[in-house]
């Protein structure tokens, strides 16, 4: 157990300093700041587009980060054989992989937090410079409910990282792992379509397959409450709890699978 934490801290220290992550986060922040300009074009909807764009940027760039750290860092470690020295130490393979996951998720959350702070910075600036009498209907600029969306984005990305880690625990090709992970993310957006397949296709076999896929594939669309929080609609505590529990269960399943694969793997 202690070793797991040691691995996690070490992985965190190593990944957090990675220069690629700096670029991705910087890019996201620049995008958020420039959404300010876009806000001037929308006949009174300035705040909405800044909120939308900020959340979308966090979601998209966060996705890049998750795939990069989940696939890139693990494959790189195996490819460059940094892993040999570590596994020769008194550390069990499962401790290593769980620790690795925790360290990666820590890095992910730190990057997400940086983006969230920049996001609120832009919104706060907007709120302070809003001309009096302009359209202020709807939720406030620095609505704390936005954090709920950020929270679910975090959970979603933790799940993506787990998927990426799972793939790279047995695949040697970083590109393939990245492609599969991205593909699963896209597929997971279409949950509603899969569930309602019977409205589109007549064949009962296809419908049954689609339903099965709906339950098996990670349902990423459920983590998307961006539109709700921007419009100030309430998101129930139950919903948040259920979605987070789903994420944790799915992640646990993936990590167990990754541990099983990893424990038996030959490092050629």
């Amino acid at each position: 157990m202690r070793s797991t934490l040691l691995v996690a801290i070490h992985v965190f220290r190593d990944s957090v300093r990675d220069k690629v992550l700096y670029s991705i986060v910087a890019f996201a922040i620049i995008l958020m700041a420039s959404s300010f300009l876009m806000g001037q074009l929308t006949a009174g909807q300035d705040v909405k587009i800044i909120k939308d764009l900020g959340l979308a940027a966090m979601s998209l760039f966060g996705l890049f980060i998750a795939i990069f750290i989940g696939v890139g860092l693990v494959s790189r470690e195996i490819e460059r054989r940094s892993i040999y020295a570590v596994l020769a130490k008194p550390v069990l393979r499962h401790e290593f992989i769980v620790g690795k996951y925790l360290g990666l998720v820590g890095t992910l959350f730190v990057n997400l937090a940086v983006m969230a702070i920049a996001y609120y910075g832009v919104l706060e600036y907007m709120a302070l410079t809003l001309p009096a009498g302009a359209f202020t209907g709807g939720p406030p600029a620095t609505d704390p409910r936005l954090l709920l969306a950020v929270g679910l984005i975090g959970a979603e990305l933790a799940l993506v990282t787990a998927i990426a880690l799972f793939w790279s625990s047995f695949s040697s090709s970083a590109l393939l792992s990245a492609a599969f992970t991205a593909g699963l993310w896209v597929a997971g957006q279409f949950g509603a379509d899969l569930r309602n397949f019977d409205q589109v296709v007549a064949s009962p076999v296809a419908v049954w397959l689609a339903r099965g896929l709906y339950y098996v594939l990670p349902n990423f669309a459920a983590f998307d409450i961006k539109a709700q929080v921007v419009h100030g609609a309430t998101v129930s505590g139950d919903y948040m709890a259920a979605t987070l529990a789903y994420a944790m269960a799915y992640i646990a399943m993936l990590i167990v699978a990754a541990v099983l694969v990893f424990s038996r793997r030959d490092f050629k």
Partner: protein
Amino acid sequence: MDAIRTEGLTKHYSVGFWRPRPYVALEGLDLEVAPGEIFGFLGPNGAGKTTTLKLLMQLIFPTSGRAEILGRPVGDVSVRRRIGYLPENPFFYDNLTAEELLAYFARLFGFHGQERATRVSRILDEVGLGAERRFQLRKYSKGMLQRVGLAQALLNDPEVVFLDEPMSGLDPLGRRDVRDLILRLRDRGTTVFFSSHILSDAETLCSRVAIVAHGKLVTAGSVAELVPFRVRGWDLIVSNLTIAQVHDVGGPDAVVREIADGRHHVILPEAASLDSALSRVTTHRGQLLSVNPVRDTLEDYFLARVRQAERREVG
């Protein structure tokens, strides 16, 4: 109790996706290494040296056979506290410094606080890393990385150390440092198991060696047993003589070669008398620059056995 012991250690791979063919990386290796020895594990590329080391470190799993380190089966985590491993061409975590990396490993071994700091500092001194220890590993040259690799292998004062090509990437100065280090380890009673193709080092360092080729053990034993000290001739370098005079010095069966600047290389056959050759040099008023015995080296022995193994394999 042996420090290291393998019985019938075998590793087969399946190569190819559509019609997998078996590839024999290692076949039936039986090995014993006594504690305190320096054991050289030698062989050409692809012979199975790295495979054996990885099997011992449980980076890969054997197809059949077993291995033990310090009397416990390989893979026993408690044993890993007492051993060290230097992988071939090590790479580490780019964004950390050498100090941070070693501190991490030290913590994994269970060293805390002041003891950890002392150990890390001491081992970095021992491998010759000074102020560089605070730079990130991405900035290190191959030689420096090799030193870091050695440092992490010796951090826990192991009883048994496994070194995969420890001299690779080092300049002659570095190689001498490593040789000295290995000798110091032996003085401390550490068992050293290393694989190499630099046979001259193996000859001077090792008490025992094993030679593998094509995944099989070709031979094993002490250097003295395998390569008895026997003079097979003499190697002279002379100068200030004309070519005719040189031929006279060497006699009818000698091999003569001209080196630059009026120097000549004379190789006397086994039967020739060294004394008469030397006196002939004096007679002709030549200069004797060097005299060396020609013996079988480990390299000769190694090449001979490997070629034999190859022929058996093919034929």
